[in-house]
Each structure stands twice: as structure tokens, then as C-alpha cells.
């Protein structure tokens, strides 16, 4: 009897250890080891524990390295106002005891989803006070402002203040709501085809049906390709599909990457591609926490790859810039785009002058193999939060700064996709003007 209970105990123990041990050591996804719900920024990759926990034996330094691995470049580009290096001097020791600003996780705690704000911050919103207490006494304009209003009033951000610092505001005083001309940028590939062909040794001659090097496909498919910018610029079937042993039926983002490196790189950094970047399966609207058109039981399960928005063979950018977005996104802002002023702006051919992509995937300046131009930033999260990040690369192409700040601060207006005029007025430009009028003369 005793022997049997020992055997049962042993079996149960081995089974339990086996179950958890197998998951811990061999499985990509480890749901039973997740200590608490992950924030909206990371939930997509919550099962790829080692993206953040890069070393099981590391402390906060190792975690910090993981943050910087993914977010470091972005912080540097944003001219981060509070980089770690500003806090390492021992003179800050007593301040660091209140808030250790050397570590991302001091403000962005993970696995505590319930206490996380929109901006992924796990602190009460009056944290600026700890170091900038004196500002209320220093500046007339800042007297009696609530301690938690620094970043909530459209004036300051903790990291990215490129569109908010005083000299920048001063440069943009008294701009009209709508600028006389809209700033646009030419398509990189179209306008640089010859230069690109020269640098890469690629023959950019237009191709006809008879040139296709994999021509036994359906007519519809071949037609799509024939009328695409790919065929027009000499990109043959095998360039994407490979040939012989290397042939792939459905090319992945890795195939696209060989020519469209910047686009794929930025796609992998945003919420559309971050699962692929972590080596997981592609993101799907069914897995999203946002309001989405979920795939119905009959519909095909949608997944996010390059082809989800850029239909294979046609690679049309017009579809990708609006229709593709609203085929998944089902929130008020997306659904109301059709009713917005932005939507009503059309060019001579009737195409949208402003699309979802104009604002959410703005063209940014790049230097590709020595060729300068503008490419589409496929990381739509890059300018999303806090929304003042969108001002410089997007809003100011068409609008004045005051109008842009007012509009972005008006939550209702953002939700309605900018139908109507802003209800808010951000006062920072008025204050700057007032302070400038008392400035003494100097060569500096």
C-alpha cells in the first residue's frame, strides 16, 4: 500500500515537472510562466519572454539593455530630453532615491497592466515635480499650474520635445491654420529608378508578358504584375519568388527586404510587424486589443505581412493607404475618415491627397546607398504616442503649429477624425510670445 502511494507520488511529481519543465525549456510560448498581464505596448510579444528577459541571471541592467535594444534608436532620434546619462552623476543620488530615472522600468513597469496609463507609464502623473519643483516660482506663466499638467496640457513630453521646445514654438508663431501649399514628397523608387539601377547594377527596363520568367501562372495574376510598378521597372517573377530550388510560392517580408530594406525594417518595429520581429507568427486582427473587424468563421484568417496591405502582384499603394487599413480597423477614428475634410481633398485624377498613410506612415528623409530621398516609414507607431510626435513629420506639412497643437489636444476631435474645428487652445505659444517681447538684445 505504502509502495503504491510512493509510486503515485513519484509519477505525479514527474508529470508536473515534465509539463512545466518542457514549456520552460523547449516551448516558444510559456503562458504558465507569465507573472501578470503585459501592457498594451508589449502584449503581442508577451510569450516571447526572452525578448526582454535576455538573460535569466541578470538584474535591472540586463532588463535595461533589452529596453534599449528595441527603443534605443528611437529615443536617440527623438533627441530624448531625459537620457540616462543625465542622471548618472552622484549629485543626483537623493533624487534617484525618489525616482531612479536611470532605468526605463522605474516609470514603465511591466506585468502590471492595471496601473498603466496610455503612455505606458506606471507612475502617478505628477512625477515632473520631483525635479522641477521650482518652475512655478520661476515663471510667471507657470504659477499655479497643477503638478500633473506638464505633459497632459499639450506642452511638454518626458522624452520627445522636438515640436514643443521654446525656440521651436517661437519660430512658428502666428502661422495660419492651413498653410498656402501642401508639402509633398516624390516616391523614392519612381524618382530614383535610374540612379538605383546604376548603383545596384540592376537592369531597370520595362518588362512585357513574354519577358516573365515564370509565365505559367493564371492570366489574372500575370496581368496584375504586368501593370504594376514592378514590371514597369524591370522586376521579374524570380526577383521575389526566387527560382529553381530557392523558389517560394508566397514570398515573405524577408524576400521584400532585399530591395525594400527601410520599409521592412520600419514595419518590423511597429505593432504590425513586432511579432514577426520577435520570431513569432504574424499578428492578426483577431488577436488585437483594438476595435477590429474580426475574421468571421467563414472568412479567411487575416494575418499581417507585406501582402496584407500591398496585394501581391499589383502592389498598389492606393489600396494600401486607406482601404487596407479600414478593412481591419473598426474604431470611430478610422470609420469616420470618409466624413473628414482630409478625405474630401482629391487630386486631378480623383485620388485622395490625404490618406491614412499620409499621417500614420509619413514619408521620411533617407539616404539609401548614397541616394537621398523620402521613403515611407512603415512603423505607424513611431508618431502615434504621445501624438505631438506627429506634428513635425506630418501636421506641419499642411498646418500651422498652433492649429496642430490645438487639434491634437482635443481628444474628441481626434476621435471624430478631425471633423470640425478644435475646441482647445494651447497657450504655450502665447506665453512664448510674451516672454520674447521682454528679451534683451544680443548677438546670441
Amino acid at each position, binding site marked *: 500500500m505504502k509502495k503504491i502511494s510512493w509510486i503515485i507520488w513519484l509519477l505525479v511529481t514527474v508529470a508536473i515537472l515534465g509539463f512545466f519543465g518542457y514549456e520552460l525549456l523547449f516551448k516558444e510560448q510559456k503562458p504558465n510562466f507569465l507573472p501578470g498581464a503585459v501592457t498594451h505596448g508589449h502584449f503581442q510579444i508577451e510569450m516571447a519572454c526572452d525578448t526582454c528577459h535576455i538573460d535569466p541571471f541578470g538584474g535591472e541592467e540586463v532588463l535595461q539593455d533589452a529596453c534599449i535594444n528595441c527603443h534605443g534608436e528611437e529615443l536617440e532620434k527623438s533627441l530624448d530630453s531625459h537620457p540616462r546619462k543625465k542622471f548618472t552623476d552622484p549629485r543626483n543620488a537623493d533624487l534617484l532615491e525618489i525616482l531612479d530615472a536611470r532605468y526605463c522600468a522605474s516609470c514603465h513597469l511591466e506585468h502590471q497592466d492595471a496601473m498603466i496609463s496610455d503612455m505606458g507609464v506606471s507612475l502617478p502623473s505628477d512625477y515632473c515635480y520631483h*525635479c522641477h519643483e521650482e518652475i512655478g516660482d520661476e515663471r510667471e506663466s507657470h504659477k499655479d499650474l497643477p503638478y500633473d499638467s506638464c505633459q497632459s496640457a499639450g506642452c511638454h513630453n518626458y522624452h520627445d520635445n522636438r515640436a514643443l521646445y521654446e525656440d521651436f514654438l517661437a519660430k512658428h508663431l502666428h502661422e495660419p491654420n492651413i498653410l498656402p501649399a501642401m508639402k509633398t514628397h516624390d516616391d523614392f523608387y519612381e524618382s530614383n529608378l535610374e540612379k538605383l539601377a546604376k548603383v545596384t547594377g540592376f537592369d531597370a527596363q520595362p518588362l512585357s508578358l513574354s519577358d516573365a520568367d515564370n509565365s505559367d501562372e493564371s492570366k489574372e495574376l500575370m496581368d496584375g504584375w504586368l501593370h504594376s510598378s514592378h514590371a514597369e521597372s524591370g522586376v521579374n517573377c524570380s526577383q521575389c519568388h526566387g527560382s529553381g530550388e530557392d523558389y517560394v510560392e508566397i514570398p515573405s517580408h524577408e524576400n521584400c527586404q532585399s530591395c525594400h530594406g527601410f520599409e521592412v525594417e520600419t514595419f518590423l518595429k511597429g505593432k504590425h510587424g513586432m511579432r514577426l520581429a520577435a520570431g513569432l507568427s504574424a499578428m492578426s486582427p483577431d488577436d488585437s486589443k483594438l476595435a477590429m473587424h474580426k475574421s468571421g468563421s467563414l472568412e479567411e484568417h487575416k494575418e499581417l505581412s507585406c501582402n496584407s496591405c500591398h496585394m501581391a502582384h499589383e502592389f498598389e499603394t492606393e489600396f494600401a493607404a486607406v482601404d487596407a487599413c479600414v478593412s481591419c480597423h473598426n474604431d470611430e477614428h478610422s470609420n469616420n475618415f470618409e466624413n473628414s475634410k482630409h478625405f474630401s481633398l482629391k487630386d486631378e485624377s480623383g485620388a485622395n491627397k490625404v490618406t491614412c498613410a499620409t499621417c500614420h506612415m509619413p514619408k521620411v528623409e533617407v539616404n539609401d546607398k548614397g541616394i537621398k530621398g523620402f521613403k515611407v516609414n512603415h512603423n505607424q507607431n513611431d508618431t502615434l504616442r504621445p501624438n505631438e510626435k506627429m506634428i513635425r513629420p506630418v501636421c506641419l506639412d499642411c498646418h500651422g503649429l498652433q492649429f496642430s497643437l490645438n487639434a491634437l489636444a482635443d481628444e474628441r476631435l481626434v476621435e471624430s477624425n478631425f471633423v470640425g474645428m478644435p475646441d482647445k487652445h494651447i497657450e504655450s505659444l502665447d506665453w512664448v510670445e510674451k516672454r520674447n517681447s521682454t528679451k534683451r538684445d544680443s548677438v546670441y
Partner: protein
Amino acid sequence: MKKPSPMKKLATVATLGLAASLVGCGSETSEPAGIDPQVYTDSLFAVMKADRTNYTKLIIKRLGPAGADVIKPNEHWEDLDSGAPLPAQMFRFGSELVSDMTSEFTYSLQSIWPVNKQNAPKTPLEKEGLQYIVDNPGKNFYGTESLGGVDYYTAVYPDVAVAGPCVDCHNNHKDTPKSDFKLGDVMGGVVIRVPLTKS
């Protein structure tokens, strides 16, 4: 005498090893290898002052708006075509790079009349030192303090208006609490800190 058992021997060796490693840890920051801390910080300051003076005179004065006017010394220099870091920023960037390379010393530029309020003295010793160098022109200030559980040797050196641009830019800056600096005045101080022992 009774021979110690093998277990005891092992325990003794382990204890000694542990003690040795602890001593090793402690000596990492203690005893600045024979050199008097004052000589050490004085020498560091000489290099800092030379670089700082040269940057202001040879770059900012010569190429800035008071000279050839081809560069724009500006706090937001990264955001301007031909923007150049201010002398104080150049100094801070040096200090930040140094802290990436060593923790044997740290330094910063401060003032009791700061343009940037984060450059106001924070620790009691900084406050005392910065006041001292203003009240005693030409003299340095030395002391020790304990911050975050570590003892430091702290030296404060006067930062003097060595060229026209120092005075002009500060006196006319929107955020300056003092607008009557003259050439040769002590405008602030360089604080150099060397960790002594971990307490």
C-alpha cells in the same frame, strides 16, 4: 595541538577566500594609488579649463555671431543647420562621455545664478563650495561629502568669464537670474568628485 579536520580546513580556506575577495572589492575605489586627491583634481581641472577656454575663444568667438557668423551656438544645435553646442553643453557632453568610460571621477558645471536650473548646486557641499569661490575670487574649494552611501572628495573650481561671448550670452539670456556679469567675473564653478571608500 589537534590537527584541524579536513572539513574545518576547507571552511577556513573558504572564509579566507571570501575575506580576500571582500577586501579586493573594497580597495577598488579606496586609496587613490598614492596620488594626493587635490593634485589629481587640480590636474583634471587644468585640462578641462584649457579645453573649455579654447572652445569658447577658438570656435564660438571666432566662428559664431560675434565673429565670422558661420555657426550658430544654440542650446538646440542638433535641430539647426550649422548649429554648434554651447560651451556649457560641450562641457557636459565631455563629462557624459567620461562617465561612460570610467567611474573614477565625475564632474559638472554649476552656478548659483544658473541659466538652466538643473545646474544649480544641489548637495550642501556644492552650495557651500560655489558660494565660497564667488566670495573668494582666485581660490578653490575642497571638501568631502557622502552621497548615496559613498564618500567623495569634492573640489570646486571657479569658472571665469574668459571671453566676451560668456558675458554677452549670459547677461542677455531669457532665463538668467543675473544680467550684470563682467569679463573676469566668477560666473559659476566646476565641481569634480572622486569616490573614496564605499561606506
